[in-house]
């Protein structure tokens, strides 16, 4: 069945350190993976995406890594800032024309 989930529900990181948020997915047919950020009181906001034919993609301060062999997706945030405090969801699509399936989310806490 459909299943996109995260290893840890909560992650605490010191301000300035790098954060790594992990996600395991079960649908090997998925072609497209996305990371969303949800701040308190707001809807999910797109961060970065990656196609299944790639294993790494970089954005501004964020990097997404995809390991299809073990069906693992991760989001790396460099030099974590207080504004990075949020719940982060991984999501998948079978292809670009399919609906988005969200995982459960990891809450990122930034320690001063």
């Amino acid at each position, binding site marked *: 069945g459909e299943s996109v989930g995260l290893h840890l529900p909560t992650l605490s990181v010191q301000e300035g350190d790098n954060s790594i948020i992990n996600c395991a997915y079960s649908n090997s047919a998925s072609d497209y993976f*996305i990371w969303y950020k949800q701040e308190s*009181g*707001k809807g999910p*906001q*797109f961060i970065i995406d990656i196609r299944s034919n790639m294993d790494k993609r970089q954005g501004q301060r964020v990097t997404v890594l995809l390991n299809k062999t073990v069906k693992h997706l991760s989001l790396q945030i460099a030099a974590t800032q207080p504004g990075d405090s949020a719940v982060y*969801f991984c999501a998948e*699509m079978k292809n670009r024309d399919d*609906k988005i399936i*969200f995982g459960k989310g990891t809450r990122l806490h930034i320690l001063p």
Partner: protein
Amino acid sequence: EPEVTQTPSHQVTQMGQEVILRCVPISNHLYFYWYRQILGQKVEFLVSFYNNEISEKSEIFDDQFSVERPDGSNFTLKIRSTKLEDSAMYFCASSVRGNSAEKLFFGSGTQLSVL
């Protein structure tokens, strides 16, 4: 920056009552969606809507649910007879083209509490 607007932000209703959740998508968007998020759980797809008809719906979207775009700006989700388990945050989203994750914009949600 344009945004998706949802009203009300909070809705409290009695079990069995009808509720209508309202959304104003971004003006040039053509694809519209409703998602919901039960407290502490993942965001779940409910329905997608394009060209004045439902494109796809999930198992959650049963006969108690309906969507409508009554005019050129509003997109509504109606729950005909609410149940306790309908309590959740409901997100509206819109995009210029279908199922574009990068171009999918979410509203801030309506928190529905069914008592």
